[in-house]
């Protein structure tokens, strides 16, 4: 793997039970040449030697990537490279399928919870890791109830508090101004772009630590896509974002860090600006310049 992560030990130390927690979570330094500045960031999730199997098929092979806190990390690669499989490990989506298994770890900081650990409850994981899918999938309920759903599941009953949190989430997903007068209307009456932002609001309402996006704009027109991309850019102030996209320009526009995957392996991980101007690996260059095939 060609990676610019200089201090991989930092990511590895995340698995040491004695490693510091809280404000002393591991940091990752992005290596530089003489023209690039060093950036040191907190690691939100340290992926270490992660492999994933569908039955006998090994779909992910020894992935080690530090996911920087409150940054946008994009996963790119051709179809079948494992990027969506990798994304779904974070909230244990694979647990819904029989005969699958994980090896290695994804350590969530600051409390060093191994998201794919055998004793870890997937429900607990999903309470902390939100996900937005390719196709907007609002519940057949009102706009308000879609956002309030997760809050109610967590025991929030006070109507005023619920209303406050719903408004906050809708503002956070840049949808409030468009739906504030129709909160009781069916969510299914919204446009595709609005539905997707509603799904983001629904995910935001439960204040996730990481938000996963799986091709969030592939079903949207350019205007709706631009709104979602702008939203993702602003979300990094409050949440760590991991996004899978087929659209290379989208990865370049929205991500701080980009990982290129191929055949279940990580080929290169670096700052997005580096990947899209001067990648270290020829395979990465061939793919992002459209020479793959």
């Amino acid at each position: 793997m060609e990676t610019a992560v200089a201090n991989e030990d930092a990511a590895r130390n995340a698995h040491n039970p004695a490693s510091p927690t809280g404000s002393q979570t591991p940091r990752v330094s992005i290596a530089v040449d003489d023209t690039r500045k060093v950036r040191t960031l907190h690691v939100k999730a340290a992926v270490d030697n992660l492999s994933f199997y569908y039955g006998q098929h090994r779909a992910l092979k020894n992935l080690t990537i530090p996911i920087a806190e409150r940054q946008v990390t994009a996963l790119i690669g051709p179809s079948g490279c494992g990027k969506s499989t990798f994304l779904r490990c974070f909230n244990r989506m694979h647990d819904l399928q029989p005969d699958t298994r994980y090896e290695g770890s994804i350590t969530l900081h600051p409390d060093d919870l191994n998201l794919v650990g055998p004793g870890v409850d997937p429900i607990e994981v999903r309470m902390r890791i939100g996900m937005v899918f390719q196709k907007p999938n609002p519940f057949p309920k009102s706009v308000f109830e879609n956002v309030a759903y997760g809050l109610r599941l967590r025991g929030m009953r006070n109507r005023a508090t619920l209303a406050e949190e719903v408004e906050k989430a809708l503002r956070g997903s840049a949808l409030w101004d468009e739906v504030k007068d129709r909160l009781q209307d069916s969510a299914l009456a919204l446009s595709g772009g609005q539905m997707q932002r509603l799904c983001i609001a629904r995910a935001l309402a439960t204040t996730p630590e990481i938000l996963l996006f799986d091709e969030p704009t592939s079903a949207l027109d350019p205007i709706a896509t631009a709104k979602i991309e702008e939203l993702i850019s602003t979300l990094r102030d409050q949440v760590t974002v991991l996004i899978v996209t087929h659209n290379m320009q989208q990865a370049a526009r929205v991500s701080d860090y980009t990982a290129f995957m191929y055949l279940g392996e990580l080929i290169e991980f670096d700052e997005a600006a580096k990947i899209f101007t001067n990648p270290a690996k020829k395979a990465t260059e061939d793919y992002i310049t459209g020479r793959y095939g």
Partner: protein
Amino acid sequence: MAELALGERSFMLSDPMEGHTAKAFDGALTELRLHAVGMGGLVIDQVSTAVRALLDADANLAQTVLARESQVNDLERTVDREAFELIALHQPVAGDLRMATAVSRMTVELERAGDESKKIARFAGRMAGGEPQGPVRAVARYLQHMAELTTGMLRDAVRALDESNADLAERVRARDSELDAEFAAALRQLMTLAMQDQRYLGVTIDTVFALKGLERIGDHAKNIAEQVVFIASGRDMRHKKSQAGA
């Protein structure tokens, strides 16, 4: 790890501009580079013709350079527009993006080198019209040698672009110091002449400008070579001293 698997699938490209799934992209990039190389060839000829016109006080050669100046300007606009459209229509990244932006910068360097040739040709025209030839004769050897150096640097810089050859481009950068040394030596010669005989001061100053023009053309060749290094490797060599140079 994936390197082996990728090696089996990845392309070994004989031409660094080709191999895109979208063949129109290949075509646009190749055309851009060919036009830049063509512009380079014209500018090299402008430089050598202008210096020949000066040394021989040949009005016809001087006129040839002046007449072709508009072709250099047209090529600058054409190549720059092609680079601009390539960025707008194909959204290049990585090496392709570096090629588009660097070629756009190169056209500026080539056009300025062409401008210097034009100034030398105008001076040659005045010489052919009867201005005293003493100062030019006094530094003819330097003019000849500096013209050979500059056209050689330009030729190799353009060849490096054509071949995406960073090593060749690095060697061009290193040769700039030799040109600077020649310019300094020629200046000393002219100053000695000016102190001995002040009748030709005006022509002496024009001769200094011609020498300076050649020195500047060498700088433009060096700048083009730096852009080739950027295209081939992503390294930004601007404002960095050449390791092999002074």
